């Protein structure tokens, strides 16, 4: 028991060390940050115009429990989360193609653990930057994000949401151990998050039948949960959504570890 907890402590320290270096490394990509920032500002501006038109500029109207202000902030949160995820699938695919996977596997650290550290470090940095940029445009148009404990709910569910995103991306990325191209699968995943993940439209505004489908899939836990909790705090629901997230994380993590173990025994690295 003691050895077991010690093992986890060691793994945690290693993960933290990788996270720290990944944080500093990403700061070199300043134009990337600027470009994403510009895109975020632009797309949020368009969304604000679209939804203002849909609500006819009426700030008091509530549709399926969302006022104009809530919907705009909801979109700020989903966009900030979506753009936070680094391109994990293409990274793994590249590593397998050019053989850099060897550099990862020569270390006494788990492969998924390494990538999780890098992902978490980059995603959290980007998420915070995106929240700041998103706020800069949403605030003047629809007012401050005063949703009670909403911020708390958002942050509480965002960690789990990014973890679910990581695991989903990892599942697709690990396919590179078997097939050459993962971009097609990644495309499918992205589009699923896009629609039934609630990126463009809160799930509450979708038709009844689609809501029932969404409830059974992990995508809602990656975007919809934190963003909705951010504009609609509800302590009881928070506990329930946290539990659902943890459930998905356990399930997906098991799938990732199973898939990794099978994949790594099949792995063939170029350069004979």
């Amino acid at each position, binding site marked *: 028991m003691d050895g077991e907890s010690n093992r986890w402590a060691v793994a945690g320290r290693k993960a933290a060390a990788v996270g720290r270096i990944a944080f500093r490394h990403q700061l070199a990509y300043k134009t990337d940050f600027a470009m994403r920032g510009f895109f975020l500002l632009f*797309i949020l501006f*368009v969304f604000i115009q*679209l939804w203002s*038109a849909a609500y006819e500029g009426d700030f008091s109207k509530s*549709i399926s429990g969302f006022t104009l202000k809530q919907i705009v902030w909801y979109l700020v949160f989903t966009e900030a989360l979506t753009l936070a995820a680094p391109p994990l699938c293409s990274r793994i695919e590249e590593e397998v193609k050019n053989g850099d996977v060897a550099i990862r596997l020569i270390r006494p650290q788990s492969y998924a653990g390494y990538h999780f550290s890098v992902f978490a470090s980059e995603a959290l940095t980007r998420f915070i930057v995106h929240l700041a940029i998103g706020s800069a445009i949403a605030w003047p148009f629809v007012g401050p994000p005063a949703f009670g404990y909403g911020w708390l709910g958002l942050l509480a569910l965002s960690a789990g949401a990014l973890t679910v995103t990581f695991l989903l991306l990892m599942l697709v990325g690990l396919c590179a151990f078997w097939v050459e191209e993962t971009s097609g699968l990644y495309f499918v995943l992205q*589009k699923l998050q896009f629609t039934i993940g609630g990126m*463009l439209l809160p799930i509450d*505004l979708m038709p009844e039948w*689609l809501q029932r489908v969404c409830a059974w899939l992990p995508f809602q836990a990656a975007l919809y949960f934190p963003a909705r909790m951010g504009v609609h705090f509800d302590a009881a629901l928070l506990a329930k959504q946290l539990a659902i997230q943890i459930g998905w994380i356990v399930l997906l993590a098991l799938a990732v570890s199973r898939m990794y173990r099978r994949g790594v025994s099949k792995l063939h690295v170029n350069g004979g």
Partner: protein
Amino acid sequence: MSTADKLMANARYVWTCWKVNLAAMEYRLSFLLLAGMMFVNNAIWLFFWSLFFGRFPVVQGWELHDVMLLWAVSTGGFGWAAMLFGNFPRIAGIVATGHLDVYLSQPRPVLLSVLVSRCSVTAAGDFLFGIAVYLMVGDTSPRGMLLFALGLLISGMLFIAVMVVAGCSAFWIGNAEGMTQQLFNSFIALTTYPSDIFRGFVKLALFSLVPAGFISYLPIGLLRDFDPLFAAGAVTAACGLTLAGALLFRRGLRRYASGNTIAMRS
């Protein structure tokens, strides 16, 4: 050689380029998949719009039907432009990295050579999507089809012209790739949202500074309630910008060439 002969020679040249591009594709499966993915991508956007209009049936006079036609005109126009003149979004990069030299050494109009020497296969997905959506929901009477063809022509020309003008900035400021890429993405995005959700200064900009409005108002002003004034404006904008792009490119080229000779002397 007379002007007519010259025109004929250029037309033959462009025709040959297209044939070569088509042959070079060899109908590779991965390309077909990419084109298919573009088709699905666009379809998913329309799915989003159907959900959106399920909640808000009419937004600023626009209905789902109009937005579908907007996507038909925008993706269809982009599709033919990127298939036949595939290099139009890349002019800034080609200028900045000195790749123009290859085209300058050929006895053909430089801008035309640049534009036709690439064919975007994924754009085939966009083009087919545009046509498919129009056949599904558009007016298929001869008059309707003719107007749609005009709409495709206007939107494709605008895509090309705007990116040529933007790309020419590389002649003067050098590394403009990142900036024009952003402009390109934003411009495309703007052409897929109803023009009437924007107001005031921004709407004005849509019909002047960033003329995406001439595309995103086509479903209303050209296809639904034919507005001669708007139609004339859109045609003028498309032709005018194309001409402006060509002239600007010619001026940039003079700068490019003289810049090179200076570099060679030093």
